[in-house]
């Protein structure tokens, strides 16, 4: 075989050189082509992937921030019963006072005074309404009043409540002073918060 190759080399040197040159050219071409493929394959994908990575990071951080912002919104959405919906619970200007009076009457508590309703705007369609009351009665009545008020709606909150014995010698008779608070939500705000009126 080697001798044949030697003969081939001697006899067909030009053809052999041509074939070797072509083979080398093909190899070089292949190598360059592969190298080019490797480089060009790496470059656009690297740019694209970098871009994708940046966008993904930006979107991820935006979503994380959005999720943080949504936490209190979801809490509010999950506790709709804590808010006075004017569409279903009525106008607080009249109903708030009526409910308090009804509760004191039901509990047998003597309502000594009930103040005007104070409004504080939290946002468009959302207000904080407060009424200050003073009443007295036996401790059982006070407890009954507190329970009645809570049962009539979970949206009644005591901003503050002070209970004092009316007479130190009869501690079962209590004087009650406190501010009851509700957070009212107009239908438009309810729509915005919970997607319904």
């Amino acid at each position, binding site marked *: 075989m080697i*001798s*044949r190759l030697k*003969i*081939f080399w001697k*006899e*067909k040197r030009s053809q052999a050189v041509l*074939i070797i040159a*072509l*083979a080398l050219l*093909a*190899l070089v*071409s*292949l190598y360059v*082509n*592969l190298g080019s*493929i490797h480089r060009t*394959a790496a470059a*656009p*994908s690297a740019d*694209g*992937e970098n*871009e*994708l990575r940046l*966008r*993904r990071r930006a*979107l991820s951080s*935006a979503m994380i921030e959005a999720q943080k*912002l*949504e936490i*209190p*919104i979801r*809490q*509010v959405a999950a*506790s709709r019963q*804590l*808010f006075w919906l004017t569409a279903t619970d009525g106008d607080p200007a009249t109903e708030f006072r009526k409910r308090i009076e009804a509760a004191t009457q039901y509990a047998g508590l003597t309502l000594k005074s009930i103040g005007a309703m104070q409004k504080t705007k*939290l*946002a468009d369609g*959302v207000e904080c309404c407060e009424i200050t009351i003073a009443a007295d009665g036996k*401790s059982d009545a006070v*407890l009954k009043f*507190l*329970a009645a008020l*809570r049962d009539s709606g979970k*949206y009644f*909150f*005591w*901003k*503050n*409540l*002070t*209970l*004092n*014995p009316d007479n*130190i010698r009869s*501690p079962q008779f209590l004087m009650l002073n406190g501010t009851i*608070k509700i*957070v009212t939500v107009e239908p438009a*705000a309810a729509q*915005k918060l919970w997607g319904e009126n």
Partner: protein
Amino acid sequence: MIRGKMPKVAVVVWDENYRVKGIVVSAGRGGGGFTRLSEADAEAPSLAAGLAEVWAQPEFREADVIMLSGFMPESVCFELPLPPAGYAQLNGLLQFELPRRLPCPPSELKVFFRRVGTAAVRVFAIRAPQWEKVVAAVRESGIRCDAIVHPFMAVTEEFAYFPGFVPGLCFRQSEPDKLMEPALPPDEAISGDLPETVLNFAASQKWSAALKYLSPLPPDLKPQRFRCLKAALALLLVLCLGSGVALGLRHWLDNRERDSLIGQALDGFDTALAQQTQARPGLEELNALAVKMLEATGEIDPLPGVAVLTTALPENAWIINFRSGGGGVMLTLLATGSSGPLVNKLNALEGFEVDSLRQQLNPDGAVTVYATLKPKGEKQP
């Protein structure tokens, strides 16, 4: 003699009567002489027939080195002293020299030459029609060979005379350091073995460098060797190029698809980011509202505290002030006698924990207890 390991060599020689003789030899091991593998003789009505008959023997194969040599009429062979030069340069020099040496115009002749030693060229000239006859005969016989040479062109000895092959002339060196020249054979027995001479020349491979000028043959007369190797190389080349093209195409398609996918993904991200950005102000506004609403509804419910206290206090203690607000319950209690049971009860209150506790001993012996309760589980500020 042939030295070293050599391939098989086949020579076919003929004389003026078309007696054709073919010999196949291989070099012996360790640089020994030829090992004759096969011999064939033929006597045919024509050169072509004789060549074909010899070539039909199974030992004659195209893969071997094949050289044809024999009687060629209307030819002349001589040597010229020329300076050392390459074959292309020698060819140019001969264009000037030959018209003076040849018996007829060079245009009517086919001229072949090879370098002999360092400062001489051996020339063989034959009338073109005669050469064409030889070539036609070889073609007709079906032989494809490496070279067709006149025996004198193969001579490497100092003199040679091939009775029956080259009638009337011998090729000899008349004096030392003189060139070889055709001459009438001397009386003494000067002879040469034609097959041996041609074998030596064919096996020496010295002719391969001069082949273009020694024996230029038409392509159809040249042996086709290494056909499989060439085909394999061509196939490999085609495969290499094909695979390169396929790889390039695949790469291009992949790149395009990847670019498209990346573009789609980027568009998707852009859309999602735009939606997030667009929804952000509304979300922030809603968040602020929700925070305010949660803060507004974060008051403590006093009922559990009042209920627990009314039942849990000891007999000697009662509440003189209960105040809820600010996330806690502030109590002022009065205890007659020891305040220990009261404090213990406060510490054990269900749902509350004591945030602060202060006691004051009154002049009448009673104890006023100031306590702040927080719902259990609520973090201390």
